[in-house]
């Protein structure tokens, strides 16, 4: 079945450093979504990308969807302590039928002040 791999599993950065997490799918995706889960909280939707090569920005966060629609990345510029949490990507392939999202295992970000 469809698999979504996410790396790295953990990332520790100094406040002010940049951070990137990568998401790779075994199959072509119809879309990719990104979620953030703060410690002790639940996943919260950040954004969805649907077009090949699409790039979207939310303040210091930049999201990219690969040209082949099999990979995606989330880049955070100049991390802050408020960025701490686990970032999940999730995608699905419409061609596989009415399938739900498949989540990556997440990247846990720690920011050292």
């Amino acid at each position, binding site marked *: *079945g469809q698999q979504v791999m*996410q790396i790295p*599993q953990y990332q520790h950065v100094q406040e002010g450093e940049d951070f990137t997490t990568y998401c790779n799918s075994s199959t072509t995706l119809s*879309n990719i*979504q990104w*979620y953030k889960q703060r410690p002790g*909280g*639940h*996943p*919260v*939707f950040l954004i*969805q990308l649907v077009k090949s090569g699409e790039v979207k920005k939310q303040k210091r966060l930049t999201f990219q969807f690969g040209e082949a629609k099999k990979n995606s990345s989330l880049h955070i510029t100049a991390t802050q302590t408020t960025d701490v949490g686990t970032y*999940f990507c*999730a995608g*699905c392939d419409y061609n596989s039928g*009415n399938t*739900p*999202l*498949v*989540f*990556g*295992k*997440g990247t846990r970000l720690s920011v050292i002040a």
Partner: protein
Amino acid sequence: DVKVTQSSRYLVKRTGEKVFLECVQDMDHENMFWYRQDPGLGLRLIYFSYDVKMKEKGDIPEGYSVSREKKERFSLILESASTNQTSMYLCASSVAGGPYEQYFGPGTRLTVT
């Protein structure tokens, strides 16, 4: 604002007990999902439902069942709880079609002793 509520934040049950986890959403969403979250394993889909009375198995349905008698309510049932079902359980909902963003509840941390 979409609100997804879960019946308990923390639950402790004994091995062999029947456990009910309730999830209610107030935004008239057609789709509802149950996930379990374990360290290092990310979000794993247990069951989902695209309509009342309808259910589909996710990636790890063994040992679980679900019920959706009303559109706003999706229940997860552990027929005979086992210690390996100790986990965080997250419910989510979304509108039909898409896939669209999923709205998660606060989670239930279940401990089976």
